[in-house]
């Protein structure tokens, strides 16, 4: 008989306890970040508005990828580092230039600390954002940190093709190819000139021997 009344007493006291907690939750500040109005990418606004209890997005958030082609030496290390082949890079020869970022100081290779040398230029740099898993391995492998994760996450599209990020526009590609063909022409001309000079010397030597 005791268990019968014990059941009733427990039932009421524990329910009473639970209800007091859910009633109390109504009077504590809500933790909802009203997304479209509140800009969550900046840590300051969130920290100030929610008195530090919530944090906005950190700087190293792994969002949509972005490539700074001025820093890219087309070394295709990121293409190899990506476990699921989301990145495709085509590159052609171009004239040797030393990389320098905005304020002129030379860009160093992060791992070997030597100056980054650009010998090839990129004609196609596509990232398949529909397949990418945002793991950050490409960003960690890139020697000149040309490829980075931004804080950007709003990129809803209506079809899968639109989710492909293409970083090399057609006219840039055209000028690059034109430049490449010029370089080949010069190289061919130089080689021909060298070959002709070598022939002349051989002819001179043969002449000298007779």
């Amino acid at each position, binding site marked *: 008989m005791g268990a019968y009344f014990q059941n009733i007493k427990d*039932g009421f006291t524990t329910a009473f306890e639970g209800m007091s907690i*859910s009633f109390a939750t109504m009077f504590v500040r809500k*933790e909802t970040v009203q997304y479209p109005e509140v800009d969550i990418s900046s840590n300051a606004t969130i920290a100030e508005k929610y008195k530090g209890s919530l944090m906005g997005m950190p700087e190293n*958030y*792994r969002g949509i990828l972005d490539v700074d082609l001025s820093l890219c030496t087309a070394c295709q290390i990121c293409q190899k580092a990506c*476990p699921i082949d989301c990145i495709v890079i085509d590159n052609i020869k171009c004239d040797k230039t030393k990389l320098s970022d905005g304020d002129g100081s030379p860009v160093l290779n992060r791992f070997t600390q030597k100056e980054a040398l650009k010998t090839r230029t990129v004609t196609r740099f596509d990232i398949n954002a529909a397949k990418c898993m945002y793991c950050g391995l490409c960003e960690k492998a890139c020697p000149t940190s040309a490829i980075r994760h931004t804080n950007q996450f709003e990129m809803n599209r209506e079809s899968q093709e639109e989710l492909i990020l293409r970083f090399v526009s057609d006219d840039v590609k055209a000028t690059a190819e034109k430049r490449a063909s010029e370089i080949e022409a010069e190289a061919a001309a130089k080689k021909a000139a060298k070959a002709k000079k070598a022939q002349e010397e051989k002819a001179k030597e043969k002449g000298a021997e007779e």
Partner: protein
Amino acid sequence: MTSALKTEYLTINMGPQHPSTHGVIRFILKTDGEIIYECDPDVGYLHRGIEKIAESVTWQGFVPYTDRVDYVCAMNSNLSYCMAVEKLMGMETEIPKRAEYIRVIVSELNRISSHAVAIGAADMDMGAFTPFVHFLREREHINDLLEMACGARLTYNYICIGGVHNDLPPAFLSKTAEFLDHFEIVVEQINRLISYNQIFIKRFANVAVVPPKMAIDYNLVGPNLRGSGIKFDVRKDKPYSVYSDLDFDIPIGSGRAGTLGDCYDRYMVRVEEIRESIKIIRQCLKQIPAGETKAIVKSTIKPPKGHVYFRTETPRGDTGYFLYSDGKTSPTRLKIRTGSFTGMSIIPEIARGVFIADLVAIIGSLDIVAPELDR
């Protein structure tokens, strides 16, 4: 009483899309009205062939896949894979001390958020939606902390072979300490709201009792095993990383509100493990040394020929990684033996003669996560 009336069993399809099967698991139930006569789980709806993919992916390229094997505690599965590879390469002693401590802090934080989801989902199946949302609110803080450390909320890819990718930001340690003080009180409050509630205890006690012998026979692991009273925890019995110089104790089931090994014991073991994890993190925050966070590892990792089977304690029991390497850049064979797989194999045995509502309680107490089951 043998009734002359010929009755037939109702075969119900607790289908792949069901609010209380966590993820996509299907149960083909033969029920007599409400009581289940026979339950046959049909798994594989989330079988993504990770082990076949592993054969064509490099050793360090596989780390993001381990996040998706158990996405509720991605950090712990990262840790167990990376330590298995380090054991295979024989470089366990070269990992810097600071990296070991960061690994423990981050995976214990992830254990708290994984147990929070496990407990919350068990409450939600019993019909109490509010505790689950309270746990989600607290989990949001942990997501903030881990996002601050490695930049992602759920699939971290933070622990790599040889240590961790980057060091913890300076504010991380003080914010974690602050969070733990707050979380310790709020967890007690949520427990008062639901775990000690009489209706909840009546729904969980004396349901699906797993005696210790059956638990060992079915190789239950983690909280499911400890719920049946067996005091075995890989962190304590086979200490790896820095767990040997941390002191914490192992909560085991003791038949609080019913017999030993019932659903309520498994549930309460998880509740107490959260308190243990808080204790562990606090010690780590005090003892963390300065220094490097990554051992010098060549860019292309080629472990020596051989095989290894290494276990670490993830929230769902000891996840074991079997790696067979032929000295090439990608593993020849990689097998992940997880806690949910064995937890699920016991359900046909304990779900006989139980109500449908109790099957939901069993799934909640065994803390089954679909991708860990199907890989």
